[in-house]
């Protein structure tokens, strides 16, 4: 059996590990355009912050590929999928045959049309280690940086560079920072913290760029030396789409990560997931989700029977010592606790916990995540107690007997 994996990120690594757990002999080939040993993508901001380095960023040990008998074709780009011949074509024309194929092609930065952007010579994205290295070369104490996009990527970039440059400005069309994960109150707490390090221009956008100046729609001007565009990402679906596989916004798969093409699987940021808290398909470009999908795909590629059925959005983001943990969907009734620096908001509907926002109160948040991922009926727990404080006391004695006292024959499992 020959397994080919396109990608070298979280989903790809998880799939390779799952394949090897079931099939010690099959051939595994990993193809990726990035030339690096696998690394934790979200670590690039921590790299600029000085909290990690190239060595510690490695997502797996140096001998990962050799230990697992994986042939690596890094620095090579897959440009075509031929599902009839079961071959992948590389940019240099080489053709690689497969019995089972995984597309873990990730996503790429989205570049919206912005007038005059071509006049800006020092402009960057913030997705890859190469992006971080290129941006790092431009950082110095006199530089002014403009970041377009106050989402997760833009603000993690802000954190990474704030102490290495003269000033940072951030522009976003939304009325608040982190609009996809925070409501107004939560965003306010975080924004007040970040305003010590950056100037924000919200409900605003760039009308036109000159070489080192942005003219905003509001009439304001922002002078800068370095521009970072972080307005969003787009899934890399082209290989599958051009081969005739089903794609919506992301690659469509069943709950075993099978695409509509025979023996072709997909996992990670290039795919859509069924968000159990929303009851609809979404692109969940999040590292844990990529791992869950990749592991599921790998198991099935090697002849197993895995199903990934409890995808949910979830984010853990920190800025300068503040911690924001969120998960699920912001629908239904709510429970709130507010203070100057902390915020808890729980969302519940149909007798289930649907989502939560926790700002600077991370303690035991996973108990909430577990409730919503597993769609636990709130009648089974003391939800009034859980609202105030996540704890196992609010669960039944039999749940605790199984989970803590080993009452279940299977021993401790995560769910």
């Amino acid at each position, binding site marked *: 059996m020959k397994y080919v994996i396109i990608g070298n990120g979280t989903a790809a690594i998880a799939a390779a590990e799952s394949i090897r757990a079931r099939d010690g002999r099959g051939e595994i080939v990993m193809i990726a355009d990035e030339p690096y040993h696998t690394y934790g*993508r979200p670590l690039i901001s921590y790299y600029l912050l000085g909290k990690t380095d190239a060595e510690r960023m490695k997502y797996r040990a140096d001998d990962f590929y050799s230990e697992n008998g994986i042939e690596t074709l890094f620095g090579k780009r897959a440009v075509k999928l031929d599902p009839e011949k079961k071959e992948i074509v590389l940019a240099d024309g080489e053709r690689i045959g497969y019995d089972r194929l995984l597309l873990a092609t990730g996503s790429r930065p989205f570049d919206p049309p912005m007038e005059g952007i071509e006049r800006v010579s020092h402009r960057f994205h913030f997705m890859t280690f190469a992006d971080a290295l290129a941006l790092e070369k431009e950082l110095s104490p006199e530089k002014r940086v403009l970041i377009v996009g106050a989402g997760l990527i833009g603000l993690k970039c802000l954190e990474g560079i704030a102490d290495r440059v003269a000033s940072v400005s951030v522009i976003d069309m939304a009325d608040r920072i982190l609009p996809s994960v925070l409501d107004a109150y939560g965003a306010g707490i975080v924004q007040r913290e970040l305003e010590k390090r950056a100037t924000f221009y919200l409900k605003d956008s760039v009308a036109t760029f000159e070489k080192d100046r942005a003219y905003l729609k509001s009439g304001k001007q922002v002078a800068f030396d370095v521009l970072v565009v972080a307005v969003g990402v787009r899934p890399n679906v082209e290989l599958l789409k051009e081969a005739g596989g089903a794609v919506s916004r992301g690659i469509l798969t069943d709950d075993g990560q099978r695409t509509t093409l025979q023996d072709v699987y997909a996992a990670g940021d290039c795919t859509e997931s069924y968000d159990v808290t929303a009851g609809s398909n979404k692109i969940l470009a999040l590292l844990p989700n990529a*791992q869950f999908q990749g592991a599921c795909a790998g198991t099935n590629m090697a002849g197993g029977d895995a199903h990934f059925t409890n995808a949910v959005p979830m984010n853990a983001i920190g800025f300068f010592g503040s911690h924001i943990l969120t998960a699920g969907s912001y629908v239904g009734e709510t429970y709130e606790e507010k203070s100057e620096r902390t915020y808890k908001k729980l969302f519940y509907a149909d007798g289930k916990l649907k989502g939560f926002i926790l700002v600077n109160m991370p303690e035991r948040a996973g108990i909430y995540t577990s409730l919503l991922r597993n769609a636990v009926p709130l009648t089974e727990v003391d939800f009034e107690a859980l609202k105030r404080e996540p704890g196992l006391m609010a669960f039944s004695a039999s749940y605790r007997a199984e989970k803590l006292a080993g009452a279940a024959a299977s021993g401790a499992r995560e769910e």
Partner: protein
Amino acid sequence: MKRIYVNEKWCLGCHLCEYECAFANSGLTDMVKALKGKVIHPKIRVEDGEEVHFAVNCRHCSDPICVHSCIAGALSQGADGVVGIDTDKCVGCLTCVLVCPYGAIMPAADGHVAQKCMLCIDNVCGEPNCVKYCLNNAIVYEERD
């Protein structure tokens, strides 16, 4: 593997396990120096109800969601089943805190990394110090699976 199991009917809620945990991980040999007047950050925590008390620490799950979710590759499961954390690699993002269904992984005292129970194989005790000093066998360390 050997795991810590809870007998909640025997737990008095004395919280001694929390102090023994903090002591074991303090790197000090004098308990008074290690703990007196200090705010402790144990890796085990006792939940107290009106009648019920019990201790919770890492279950060393056979399918550990914290390991799967770690963005840095800092959490891993050894061949012995122990879920360990490499604090050199951890960047303190708290994704593990976001996913642990037991609330058994938490920010470390300095706030920069996460911490979790490693069954005292990462300190001089070698075996769980919380279990060793539990007066009532409300937590035990046993091979059951």
